[in-house]
């Protein structure tokens, strides 16, 4: 078992390229799933893979006290870690608008049904991403049932940063643009394998 990397920030350009490649396939699967669900054509830009500290991640996604919805799924088996999908208001509205014909000014105006729709969509995006990933890497990954919340972006991001706080101070943030009917929508996917799993993923893909 390789343990070349001690932390996310040890990843070199080649490692990041591999992650970008995986992410590109993962996000395009996620976009297809979303597109089927909403019956709309969705295009997706090539994702960027960013290894960032907590505050940089917050700044890249939005404002620290900004209300966002987030779905969290835990990975276990051959890859352990967390997948976190963040909806900002624009994406939430685009999705809820198509799905149940609702539009809101703020997450605070939503009800339980809207929240559960967002949780389900977050889960679909994460699952299709991870499925693509498992096929590509050839690993078994079990996913937990999703958990979600609507709260301050900064508070939500303390969850992964604390979970791996003894290993790293960085997060792996994958951002791609979803383009639906000409509108660019921001999405935020955080893929956080633990360091042991990250090493084994890169090793399986022949980078070591």
């Amino acid at each position: 078992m390789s343990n070349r990397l001690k932390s996310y920030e040890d990843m070199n350009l080649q490692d990041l390229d591999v992650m970008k490649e995986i992410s590109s396939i993962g996000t395009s699967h996620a976009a297809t799933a979303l597109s089927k669900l909403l019956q709309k054509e969705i295009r997706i830009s090539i994702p960027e893979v960013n290894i960032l500290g907590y505050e940089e991640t917050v700044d890249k996604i939005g404002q620290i006290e900004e209300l966002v919805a987030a779905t969290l799924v835990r990975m276990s088996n051959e890859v352990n870690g967390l997948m976190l999908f963040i909806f900002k208001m624009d994406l939430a509205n685009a999705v809820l608008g198509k799905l149940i014909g609702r539009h809101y000014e703020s997450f605070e105006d939503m009800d339980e049904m809207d929240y559960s729709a967002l949780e389900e969509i977050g889960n679909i995006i994460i699952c299709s991403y991870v499925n693509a990933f498992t096929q590509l890497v050839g690993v078994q990954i079990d996913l937990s049932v999703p958990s979600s919340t609507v709260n301050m972006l900064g508070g939500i991001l303390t969850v992964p940063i604390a979970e791996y706080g003894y290993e790293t101070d960085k997060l792996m943030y994958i951002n791609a643009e979803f383009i639906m009917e000409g509108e660019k929508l921001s999405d935020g996917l955080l893929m956080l394998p633990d360091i042991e799993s990250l090493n084994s993923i890169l090793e399986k893909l022949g980078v070591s």
Partner: protein
Amino acid sequence: MVDKELKVGIGDMKFTRGDSRIITYALGSCIGITFYDPFLKLGALLHIMLPSRSDLNDPKVFKYADSGIHETIRKLTAFGMMKNRTIVKIAGGAKMFEMKGSSDFGNIGQRNAAMVKKILMEEKLRIVAEDTGGAYARTMLLDVSNGDVIIRTVGKPEKHL
């Protein structure tokens, strides 16, 4: 008039005297700890992320409850803080996600709160007020001119601790 506002990031601490405010945003599972000596109008806000510093070579002392509290006390004492008149308040330690079927996940907030209380007790500092637990993030602000602590959360009025 408040003339300055200091911002404390995750795993950091700031302290100051006089007419200013110290703020930390969106405490999730992390804990914000305010120290205030009313006689000196000396205040500090510490934002810890994890319970204990297991690697003693880790230079990020304020990231952990144990080393963070010890270092804050050391610094404030150098500026004349007396423990017996210091007012301590804590906030945060939330469980942001409820994971079905894995009750141990996300308990870091609770473990942080327990460790903070243990260390403060060992240091003979009394917690005068606290707002911990729950499933939501908190922004914490210490007004160093009067020791007032304000907690901001989503969908609720501001709370004074």
